[in-house]
């Protein structure tokens, strides 16, 4: 049986990724990056587990249970799917620090890590509005989840606030419960091509690996731009062929947040409660690799200032 004892020696970091896991070129990868940094710095051990599509609540609890039970601390659940299981398991291991990304979970030993994706997306929208020549921009979401809608909403608002006459098309690759939309590059490409054919010349894709298809399509048409997501996709080796089409990326520093929580446990002052990694705190932002947005940096800074000083609140659901 599992022992609920917390006294086994500290073995390092336990991390449970969402479907996709390390190497998804997206936010799981970003979490992995934070883990790697902390491991190198503090010379820690670690154990990484990854969810499957067919996983149930029981599987997720089992994973966290195994990690905590084996003495890993902190135990990090990457992705909102782990919300309930973190809540359940954290009670069994009061001395272990748990972290949950993209969700808010109450608990004395839980660090809830949240990002204001809508804020970075807003900046992406500003950049798009300033760069479009056809006054048509597009957004491709992998799946129409609440989280992805946050990206869409910020982007839409950023565009409209900058240039009200620019139209924003928001489309998703799959709907509802079908999460395959995050892993369909061919479909992402077809969707992007459809947008390009309609005269859209800036496309922001928040679609996991489907986004690479969209970026490729954009790279195939002169004078159009793609905006990446999560990590700095200009630096992504898998996208090196098309990186000159990547205007910027709306970065979400999951790595930083993961690093923070590991460090806090290492320092003996574990983080708990809700932590919002926002624009102000550098939790989200725009990547500047490639230098394609250097010319509009002033406008971007102005927008950023409005958000960080609180004069502008970005919506989290798109208006239709």
């Amino acid at each position, binding site marked *: *049986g599992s022992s609920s004892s917390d006294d086994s020696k500290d073995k390092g970091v336990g991390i449970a990724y969402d479907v996709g896991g390390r190497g998804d070129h997206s936010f799981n990868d970003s979490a992995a990056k934070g883990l790697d940094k902390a491991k190198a710095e503090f010379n820690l051990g670690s154990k990484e*587990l990854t969810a499957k599509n067919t996983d*149930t609540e029981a599987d997720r609890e089992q*994973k966290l249970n195994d990690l905590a039970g084996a003495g890993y601390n902190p135990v990090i659940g990457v992705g909102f799917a782990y919300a*309930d299981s973190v809540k359940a398991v954290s009670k069994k291991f009061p001395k272990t620090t748990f972290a949950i990304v993209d969700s808010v979970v109450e608990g004395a030993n839980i660090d809830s890590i949240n990002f204001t994706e809508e804020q970075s997306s807003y900046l992406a929208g500003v950049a798009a509005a300033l760069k479009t020549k056809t006054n048509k921009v597009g957004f491709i979401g992998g799946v129409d989840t609440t989280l992805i809608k946050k990206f869409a909403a910020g982007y839409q608002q950023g565009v409209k606030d900058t240039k009200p006459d620019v139209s924003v098309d928001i489309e998703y690759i799959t*709907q509802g*419960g079908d999460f395959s939309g995050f892993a369909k590059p061919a479909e992402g490409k077809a969707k992007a091509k459809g947008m390009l054919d309609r005269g859209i010349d800036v496309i922001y894709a928040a679609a996991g690996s489907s986004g690479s298809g969209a970026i490729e399509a954009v790279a195939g048409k002169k004078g159009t731009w793609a905006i990446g997501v999560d990590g700095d996709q200009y630096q992504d080796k898998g996208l090196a062929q098309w990186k000159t089409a990547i205007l910027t990326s709306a970065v979400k520093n999951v790595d930083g947040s993961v690093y923070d929580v590991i460090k806090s446990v290492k320092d003996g002052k574990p983080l708990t409660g809700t932590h919002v990694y926002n624009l102000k705190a550098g939790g989200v932002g725009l990547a500047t690799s490639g230098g394609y947005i250097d010319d509009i940096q002033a406008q971007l800074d102005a927008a950023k200032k409005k958000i960080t000083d609180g004069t502008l609140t970005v919506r989290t659901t798109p208006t239709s």
Partner: protein
Amino acid sequence: MKKFDKDRLILGLAAPVLAIVAAFVLTALVLLATGKEPFHAFNVMFDKGLTSDSQVFILNKATPYYLAGIAVAIGFRMNLFNIGVDGQYRLAAFFAAVVGGAVNLPSVIQIPLIILTAMLVGAMWAGIAGVLKVTRGVSEVITTIMLNAIATAVIGYFMIPGRLAQLHADTNSVSTKEIPSSGHFFGFDMGTDGTIWGFIVIAVLVGVLYWFGLSRTRFGFDLRTVGRSESAAGASGVNVKRMIITSMLLSGAIAGLVGMPVLLNDAHQFSTEFPAGIGFTGIAVALLGRNHPIGIALAALLWGWLEIASSKLEFEDYDKEIVGVMQGIIVLCVVIAYEVVRRYGIKRQQQKVGEELAAQARTKQEAAA
């Protein structure tokens, strides 16, 4: 004549045992070929995969697999391939969750209401395939595959805050309204090992009914007749078309139950995280269990064990994907072994019958002489 029975039993057991042994050998070879140590891996699977908390996990996993296996097996018994159990149970669980979340009645009404809704929805979705097959001659294999995809779309359409779902701002998840506690199913508390879902009782009941219905009732006889020979069934007086629709409805109704253990014992709501793909597991489980209620149970447990074993393997730094390879090899080996054993059995019986008849004839002749 008991002799033939015993032979059958031995032959029946020979196949899966043979297949599982072959699967382990092949898996070991794969592991070796990819530079991993197989014996430690098996050790982990058996040691860590069979601890008491793992046992609870396995039982809970196996419950929906079992129901899915039975749903598929009803079709198989009729020579119908209900590949659509997946769509049927998801759609059923969704609408059952909606209904369960919308009302708050005493448990004795609330729970049956939810279960019946699920069975009804599952049956209707499967029924479409049945009707299309009977009236338009469309292969159920194709229709059920299409219906799986369409079920996803239907759920997607309604799983939008404001339609039949709501948003949890905290956790960023979308789900149906939570089912009130009167709609929660009982469980067996195993202390630190967890809770065994009470729905396992229903699953066992379904298994018993499946066995009894098929082997002891007129209806079951008719159903098996159609599965063995449609033409003979027609000539014997079975309305084959009606039987196809009936069994599709039944299969769908049982499929409707697949999502219930998770819904009533665990999640209490249908969210985007609701497990998908159990219908396909059901196909493997039914094939493995040879459509026999006990066989399916063993297969479901085997599958549950492989799943827990996969996470234990991952913990020991093996690639948990090896379990997928293993599952594939097991199914492939099992279907081959069954067929080989079946043919061998028939041939052997024919030979034996021939020998016995010859012996009888000889003794008769001798007696006459």
